[in-house]
């Protein structure tokens, strides 16, 4: 099971849970299962084209999926997936 870290701005859609364990062999599968379990997340994580919006970064362990295989990046047991949206406060 991969662990997905939910960022603060999106926790209101996961009943305030900061970490969720999800089964899946690619990032896409994990995101799809996540949005099935928490449907309100979908409109924030997946845009109209079915892609992850560019103001949200997804990291598999310490690496940006855009430098790996994008949504097809492989996910293993104990993989940590971090969802990191853009924030601007100062």
């Amino acid at each position, binding site marked *: 099971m991969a662990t997905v870290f939910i960022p603060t701005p999106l926790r209101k859609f996961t009943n305030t849970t900061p970490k969720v364990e999800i089964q899946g062999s690619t990032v896409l599968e994990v995101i799809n299962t996540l949005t099935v379990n928490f449907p309100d997340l979908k409109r924030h994580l997946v845009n109209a084209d079915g892609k992850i919006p560019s103001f949200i*970064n997804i990291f598999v362990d310490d690496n940006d999926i855009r430098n790996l295989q994008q949504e097809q990046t492989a996910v293993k047991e104990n993989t940590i997936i971090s969802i990191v949206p*853009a924030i601007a406060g*100062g």
Partner: protein
Amino acid sequence: MNPQNIKFSREELSRYNRHIIIPDFGLEAQQKLKASKVLVIGSGGLGSPILLYLAAAGIGTIGIVDFDVVDDSNLQRQILFGVNEVGQPKVEAAKRRLQSLNPYITLNVYNIQLTSKNALSLIQDYDVVADGTDNFPTRYLVNDACVLLGKTNVYASIFQFEGQISVFNYRNSKGEVGPNYRDLYATPPPAGLVPSCAEGGVLGVLPGILGSLQALEVIKVITGVGEVLSGRFFSFDALSFESRTFNIKRNPANPLNGTNPTIKELIDYEQFCGVKAVEKKIKEINAIELNDWQVRGEDFQIIDVREPYEYEIVNIGAELIPLGTVLDNVSKIARNKKVVVQCKTGNRSGKAIRELEEKFGFENLYNLKGGILGYIDDVKPELTKSKY
């Protein structure tokens, strides 16, 4: 100025003694700090600790850009300021505070808003920029200006309990330039999706932590000590104390400095961030008109979208449905007669109306222009607003 030619007075040597005696830092690093010029954009939550620590460290010239004035609600986190500074321009108050901390440095203040028209000429004179701003358009502006001018941009941002920090556009000793903000977030979120600190809130100490880290990175960039956080992006969750350092890379598609750069000058950042979207016109009435309706006995509903504590201070007998709960209480809002929506000044009530019209197709809503403050001024001065 060549750092090696920098001299210190006896007082300065005494002041910076604890830096100078660190074996891996020493007089050489202190000379580099004194020779450097750092521009800090924003003197608020992040800017306060950045400025305090850079002034304490002995950065020779510090520029401060901010067009805002000190407000009561800033004091929960903007530790540069105190009660006596409320109402004063932030840069002036900051300069006084910082000069009293370190009289041996030069402080340049710019009581202006950073825009595409002035950013390049302002940043040009400085070696390093620290981004302590609070909105997306300015963050992209600072980023782009730094890339176009070849300046390092020490960036951080915060929201509620989370913070991020990285050093953008850093040229290392091999001459390689690291990623910048557009490599990380190619486009901003749609306007209105990510609330500001004023709308979403922030734990006061959080910008203190991230801003201090920014000051640290500025010092490392200038002195060459340690490993600068370039090509790395640090994310911190204050509640769980989880933090991660992610690896980030330059994106060949970056329109600023990728393989085929298309952006060669600063753009309209508000347009880029969708902030300039034309707002749909909503129906409005002013306090005098509302009073007319009341006097004439017209059949209408009034809704107040403020918070309960505001309602307790002063109200005009409207039905209280706080802004955050409006969409869940649509059944309480009449469809078959006029409904006046009111808040403190007309801002929040306008937002509520737009949402209700867009999401639920209401066509009978009227914004009370000027809000309850306008109503008190024009209709019922005997109502108190002194505690408001």
